């Protein structure tokens, strides 16, 4: 078959164990979906644990939640939603064969928004939590009511947002690699599954945040 001879930027795009290009592209997409299902269960175990303790110790968790700023959480939600839009536009751009520069620009904005998210998270939130002695295991120091449960809340807060932040960092790394390949001209309307699959991952990471935001920031009424 001539498909094995199709190359993009000098490299064949069809791996030798696949019969056809569509089969390869579909396999990659399905692979990512299965991976995301695993991720759902990964975060799901954490959500379940969180829910149990929030049920048991609502006053303490409410107290803890009041120490973190809704403002930054809300801004970060907006940042991630916009980044999902630019991610989708980047896929669209390569799909319809826009100029390389357009795709690169959209990928760049997506990564930039990811970095903005992380900066808000680390500098404006975690650093402040640290200064207020709210980090369990490092400098936790709070003697008010429900102290033990506030500590538990902060553990979940750091663990869940930390795990999410790792996913964002991985996502930025993937997009960086794909930007390089885009610049090298590896992708075309015929072949763009890596970008599409990375998009699936990026949207998933956003969705996790959409759940984390109300769970952590919006409890107990304000």
């Amino acid at each position, binding site marked *: 078959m001539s498909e094995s001879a199709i190359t993009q930027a000098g490299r064949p795009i069809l791996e030798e164990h696949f019969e056809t290009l569509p089969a390869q592209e579909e396999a990659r997409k399905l692979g990512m979906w299965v991976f995301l299902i695993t991720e759902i*269960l990964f975060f799901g175990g954490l959500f379940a644990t969180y829910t149990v303790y929030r049920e048991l110790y609502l006053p303490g968790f409410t107290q803890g939640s009041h120490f973190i700023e809704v403002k930054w959480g809300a801004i970060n939600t907006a940042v991630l939603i916009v980044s999902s839009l630019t991610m989708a536009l980047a896929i669209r751009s390569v799909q319809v064969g826009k100029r390389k520069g357009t795709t690169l620009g959209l990928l760049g904005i997506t990564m930039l928004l990811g970095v903005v998210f992380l900066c808000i998270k680390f500098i404006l939130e975690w650093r402040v939590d640290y200064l207020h002695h709210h980090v369990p295991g490092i400098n936790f120091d709070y003697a008010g009511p429900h102290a033990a449960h506030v500590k538990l809340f902060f553990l979940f807060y750091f663990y869940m947002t930390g795990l999410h932040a790792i996913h964002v960092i991985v996502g930025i790394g993937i997009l960086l690699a794909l930007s390089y390949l885009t610049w090298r001209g590896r992708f075309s309307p015929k072949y763009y599954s890596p970008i599409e699959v990375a998009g699936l991952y990026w949207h998933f990471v956003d969705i996790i945040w959409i759940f984390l935001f109300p769970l952590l920031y919006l409890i107990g009424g304000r």
Partner: protein
Amino acid sequence: MSVAVAELATRSRVHYLNESYGVKSWLLTTDHKRIAILYMVSITFMFLVGACAAALMRIQLLEPAGAIVQPETYNKLFSIHGIIMVWFFLIPSIPAVLGNFLIPMMIGARDVAFPKLNLLSWYIYIIGACFILYTLIYGGVDTGWTFYTPYSSTYSNSHVFGAAAGVFIVGFSSILTGLNFIVTVHKMRAPGMTWFRLPLFIWSLYATSIVLVLATPVLAITLSLMAMERFLHIGIFNPAIGGDPLLFQHLFWFYSHPAVYIMVLPAMGVISELVAAYSRRRVYGYAFVAFSSFAIALIAFLVWGHHMFVSGQSVYAGMVFSALSFLVAIPSGIKVFNWTATLYKGSNSYDAPMLYALGFLGLFTMGGLTGLFLASLSIDVHLHDTYFVIAHFHYIMVGGSVMAYMGGLHYWWPKMTGRLYPDKWARFAAFTIFIGFNLTFFPQYILGYLGMLRRYAVYPAQFQALNVLSSAGASILGVGYFIPLVYLIWSMRYGREAGPNPWRAKGLEWETASPPPRENFEETPIVTEEAYAYPTRPRAVRV
């Protein structure tokens, strides 16, 4: 003379074993067949380590006061035995060795969907195994394979972190393997290989993969929470500071009950293949056997509470979990009855793989039925944490899964190596294993029923006779495992040439050369018939 000619023919033919040589060609391979071999060597090594721990335990229990080791050491022995056998032998055994080798061949593909990911999962397995061996060398872990909190998170002074890290890491290896298999079965089937033409081995490994992908991440998150509790003393699972140890058990068993089916479903797949091949019949009720795998995978996620009947979970939850646990018997029963129906009036022959399959049928049924005892709330109060439980799950795990793994290994060995092993020795070993196994574990049913508790280094004197019997059986079992190790290795060099299809079995994997070429088939096969399309034989008419 003809042997010599055939010998020469194999030597000159290029296949996956001789296409390249050297350590690098193995460590960097993306060939699913070579990765299967890498897994086989690794899990055999881990099996030997786990078996040594078991041997020491059986020696210890020869005497009521304990024959050789201190109780602390005994705790470490049963912990490392459980951890290694569950995560580093049984879970990867059939999927990662036989599954890796066979799934692409059975569906007519050149490889799995993601060959590099496949190699990565082996490396992850090795990293996890290194953590376990490190733990073992630097003093061991004493929490049992279950890592129950708050003991593991607060009070144990052993290397909990190393062991938990090893299990956490190896989990990702299972997830990637499962992911790879799911996509492979969906997207890599040869033309004409419809879902209902798939061998039942594929159906059951597909169901296994679903469980792997859904359950394993929960174990990972649970172990990480436990490790955090251990470092930070926050009270996630420690009741002394507001935590709930029962929550750990819920999360742990949400994974670990399905994990039982991760270990048993692939075994059921192997048995379907063996029964069909050696009775020369299509498996009776193909669709029922196929879908019962999914029923088992589904119910697996709904029964975890049966491990916690005496842990203080609510009585109503206990009742629901008990009732749901009984449901598992239905799809399992369907399979056993269908295999039996296949054997009935089949043209049965009793080669070594078939002996293992028959052993499976008896031992698995026995393990399954005693599972129903344990699923009954009131009886479990009496039997919980006794040797009855130990005997029950060893009948499933060893009598079921290991028998199937051995059977599968013998059945596909000629395909993997191109050589036949000495059949007489193989049959002798199968019998030895069967006898040794029953001698080891049947007395444990009685011991448990009489009230001997598990996980103790010492026991009341009246239990000695049965314990000695069990230890004697274990030594026979050990011999039974040792014999195949010798003749299988021997056969790689001195065994007779197998030829493409020594059992005259159906299935795509038998239509290519043994050992297969790198790309499995000279040209992509086109499937035109159902699985197990054995010629129907006119029935003998009785006058």
